[in-house]
């Protein structure tokens, strides 16, 4: 990952242990983050989260994603168990180049997509060159 001109600079609070304060075990959702000329886009897999249970917070330049997952499997015993069911949580530090007021997000089919537009002043501009 290139360190220079990275708008999502570091991750803070990446959950490695269950957080007792909120109860239950958290899973770190998988994310893709890409940057275009105008914005940074974060796509996050949160399977099993209902649209109304997605919580997105931006505070002190930290973007935190939380997805509440209601228990849905109650078997006495699994024949095959390859994943656990539980809440998702992850947070990211957001660089000041992002215009916090314009952050938007949508959630569809278990995928959360967050758009983080850059401030006007950091967007690349095309400068017209006049011929002499």
């Amino acid at each position, binding site marked *: *990952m*290139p360190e220079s001109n*990275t*708008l*999502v600079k570091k991750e803070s609070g*990446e*959950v*490695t242990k269950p957080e007792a304060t909120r109860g239950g*075990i*958290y*899973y*770190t*959702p*998988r*994310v*893709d*983050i*890409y*940057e*275009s000329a105008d914005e*940074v*886009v974060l*796509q996050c*897999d*949160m*399977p*099993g*989260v*209902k*649209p109304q249970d997605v919580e997105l917070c931006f505070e002190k330049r930290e973007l935190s994603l939380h997805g509440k997952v209601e228990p*849905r*499997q109650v*078997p006495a*015993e*699994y*024949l*095959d*168990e*390859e*994943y*656990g069911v539980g809440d*998702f949580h992850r947070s990211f530090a957001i660089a000041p180049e992002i215009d916090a007021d314009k952050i938007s997000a949508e959630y*569809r*089919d*278990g*995928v959360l997509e967050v758009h983080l537009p850059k401030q006007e002043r950091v967007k690349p501009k095309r400068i017209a060159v006049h011929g002499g």
Partner: protein
Amino acid sequence: MSILTRWEPFYELRQEMGQRRRFQRAMDRLFGRWGIDLPQWSALAVSYPPVNVWENDDFVWAEAELPGLKLSDLEITVTADNQLTLKGTRQQAAPEKVEWHRQERSFGSFERTFQLPVSVDAGKVEARLENGILTIKMAKSPAAKPRRIHVKAE
């Protein structure tokens, strides 16, 4: 064998350490540089998609995490010899000319086949995909269901 062999007192130990390093590198490739402090990934699965399977008296359920997919992206088949097959493609929805900061999600075609523990009625299979969770409910064939035997107390 020559008498003048090189004296290598730690030869075996070095061999073993080499093996350990190779193993460690393999683990690093598998788990990244976090080692044992790895966050609890939603699915550190060997295969894609991760699947849970369970049963009760009447049904066998299979559930898979498939965020971003539609039911039309999937092909689900249950054969007469009780094999469940999940087939599909997960397309990436991102423009081409971008700079990537993180790529943790998997994309591409997948196919997984499971041998079900009991005989199911291939005509009675229901599939539902909601919020990225695929649930397949398969009715057990009558012969596979446990029978309740009424015991009369004398």
